[in-house]
C-alpha cells in the first residue's frame, strides 16, 4: 500500500465535513431524531418506573447506543451521494493516492456524527438528569463504536458498489441488532431463550458494558467490548481496503 498523504486526506476530509453540514437531512437524522426518540420513549415509559431509576435513565443510554450504531447510514449516504460523485471522480484523476476518497468519507462522517451525538448526549443527559458515571470509559466506547459504525457504512458501499444495497443492508442489520439488544425496549425479561439470543447483538454488549459501569462500577464488560470493537474496526478497514476500486467512482 502506497503511503497516504496526510495533508491530502486532511484537505479532502475538510471539504467532505463542510458538505455534510449543507444537507439539512444529515443534521435532522443525527441531531433532531435522536433527541425526539429519547424524549418520546422517555415520556411514554415514565409511569412504569419508580423514583430511583427513571425511564430516561434506561432509554437515554440505549437510544444513544442506537443513534451511534446508526451512523453507518450517514457515512454510506455521504459516500455515494449524488453531489459528491463528481468530486470523487476528480480525485481519481488527481495525483496522489485514491484511497483518500473513502478514508476522507470515514474521517469526515466520523467527525460530523461524533459532534452531533456529543451534542445530543450533553443536551439530553443534563435536561433529563440521566445518570452517568465513568464518563471517560463511556467516551472511549462512544468514539470506538462511532468509528466502527461509520466504517461499516463505507464498507458496505465498497463491497456492493451501490448506495441502495448498502442502505438496505444497514437499515435491516441495525434494527435487528437494536431490537435484539434491547435498545428500543428491554429484552432481558422475556425468558431465557430470548436473553441468550440477545447476546448475538453487539448492541447488547455495549448496553451491558455501559449499564454495568454506570450503576455498579463494574468494568468486567468494558475491556472485552473495547477489544471486540478494536478488532471489528481493523476488520472493517481491511475489507474496505481490499474491496475499494477507484473504477466504481467513475460516473
Amino acid at each position, binding site marked *: 500500500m502506497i503511503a497516504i498523504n496526510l495533508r491530502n486526506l486532511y484537505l479532502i476530509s475538510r471539504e467532505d465535513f463542510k458538505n455534510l453540514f449543507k444537507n439539512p437531512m444529515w443534521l435532522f437524522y443525527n441531531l433532531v431524531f435522536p433527541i425526539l426518540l429519547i424524549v*418520546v420513549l422517555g415520556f*411514554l415509559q415514565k409511569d412504569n418506573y419508580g423514583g430511583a431509576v427513571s425511564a430516561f*435513565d434506561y432509554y437515554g443510554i440505549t437510544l444513544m447506543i442506537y443513534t451511534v450504531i446508526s451512523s453507518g*447510514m450517514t457515512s454510506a449516504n455521504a459516500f455515494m451521494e449524488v453531489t459528491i460523485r463528481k468530486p470523487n471522480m476528480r480525485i481519481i484523476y488527481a495525483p496522489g493516492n485514491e484511497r483518500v476518497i473513502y478514508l476522507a468519507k470515514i474521517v469526515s462522517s466520523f467527525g460530523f456524527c461524533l459532534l452531533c451525538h456529543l451534542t445530543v448526549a450533553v443536551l439530553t443527559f443534563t435536561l433529563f438528569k440521566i445518570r452517568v458515571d465513568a464518563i471517560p470509559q463511556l467516551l472511549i466506547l462512544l468514539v470506538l463504536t462511532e468509528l466502527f459504525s461509520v466504517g461499516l457504512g463505507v464498507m458496505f458501499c465498497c463491497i456492493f458498489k451501490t448506495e441502495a444495497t448498502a*442502505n438496505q443492508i444497514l437499515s435491516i442489520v441495525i434494527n435487528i441488532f437494536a431490537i435484539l439488544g434491547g435498545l428500543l425496549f428491554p429484552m432481558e425479561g422475556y*425468558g431465557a431463550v430470548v436473553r441468550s439470543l440477545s447476546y448475538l447483538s453487539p448492541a447488547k454488549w455495549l448496553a*451491558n458494558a455501559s449499564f454495568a459501569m454506570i450503576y455498579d462500577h463494574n468494568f468486567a464488560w468494558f475491556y472485552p467490548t473495547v477489544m471486540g470493537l478494536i478488532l471489528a474496526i481493523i476488520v472493517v478497514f481491511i475489507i474496505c481496503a481490499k474491496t475499494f476500486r477507484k473504477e466504481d467512482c467513475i460516473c
Partner: protein
Amino acid sequence: MLAVFKNNCNRLWEEKMYLVVSLILMIVAISAAILLTAHIETKGNLALVVPDQQVLSERESALMANPYFNVTVLETTPETSALVQSRYDAVVTINADGNDAITTIKNPAFKTMVETALANPTGFAPDNRPIRQTGTNILGFMMMFLLMQGVLYARFFAEDKEKHLIRRIAMSPLPFGHYLLGHGLFIFLIIAVPSFLVLGVAALMGIDIGFSLPVYAGLIGVLALLATAFALFLNSFFEVADTANMLGSAIIILTSILAGSFYSLSKEATLFDKLLHLLPQKDFINFVNALEKGSLSQSTFAQLVYVFAISAVFLVIAVANTRNDYLYH
C-alpha cells in the same frame, strides 16, 4: 402501467446482487420476528435472594410455583444494572429474621402487586392484562421492517426523479396515475410475496404462527399496501433518494414505537392515546389483536378501514404532488 412494472422488474434483474441480498435480508428479518415471538415469555421476573443456610419458607416455595412469576433463587443481591435492564422486575430479599424486603425500580403499583403476591402466593393471579398472542406479535415485529423496505424499494421511482427520467415520462402519453401505480404494484409485490413465502415455510415447518395462511395473506396485503402508499407519498416530495430514505426510516421507527407495534405503550384512554390512533400502525395492530382474540367489533373494522383510507390518501397525494411538479399547466 404494466410497462413501468415490467421495466422495474428488469432493472431489478440487472442487479442480481442487490436482489439476492435484499431478499435474504428480508427473510432474515421475518425469521427473526418469528423466532423471537416464539420464545417470548411474558412473566414477571423475580429474584429471590436467599442468604446461605437459610431454608425457604412455605410461602416462598409457593411463590416459586406461581405460574405468573419466573423466580430465580440467588445467593447475593443482583447488580443494579440487571434491574435497570429489566432482567429482574423486583428483588425479594429474605432477612435473617424471616421478613422479606422488596426492591424494585418499577412503579409503586408494581411493588404493591409483588407484595400481594408475596403475602398470598398460592391464590395470586395478576389482573388480566391484555397479553398479545403470537400472530399479533409476529405482525408487530414485521411491521417496521416491511414499512422500511417499502421506502427502500421505492428507489426506482426516486432514481427516475434523481436522473430526470421522469421529465421524459411527463412528455409521454402515460398518465402519471398509471405511472405511479406501476411503481406501486412493483413495490407491493416485492414486499408482500417474499414475506408471505417466509411465513408459509414457517407454517409448513410446523411453527405456530398464530393465524392461518389465507388470513396472513390478507394482513400482509394491507401492510404492504400501507408501505407502498407511504413510500410513494414520501418520495413524491423529494428529488433525492437519500433524503426520502433517511427521513422515511426516522419517521417509521418513531411512529412504529409510538403505535406500540412491539408492545402496547399506553393503557388509559387518555387524549394522547386517542391521538395515537391517527397512526395507521396503531389501528392495524389493534385490528390484528382483535382478530386474533376473536373480539372483532364495529370499531375495530373502522380501524381497518382507516388504514385503507390513509393509504388511499397517501397515494392520491403522491400522484397529485408528482403531477404538480412535473406537468406544465
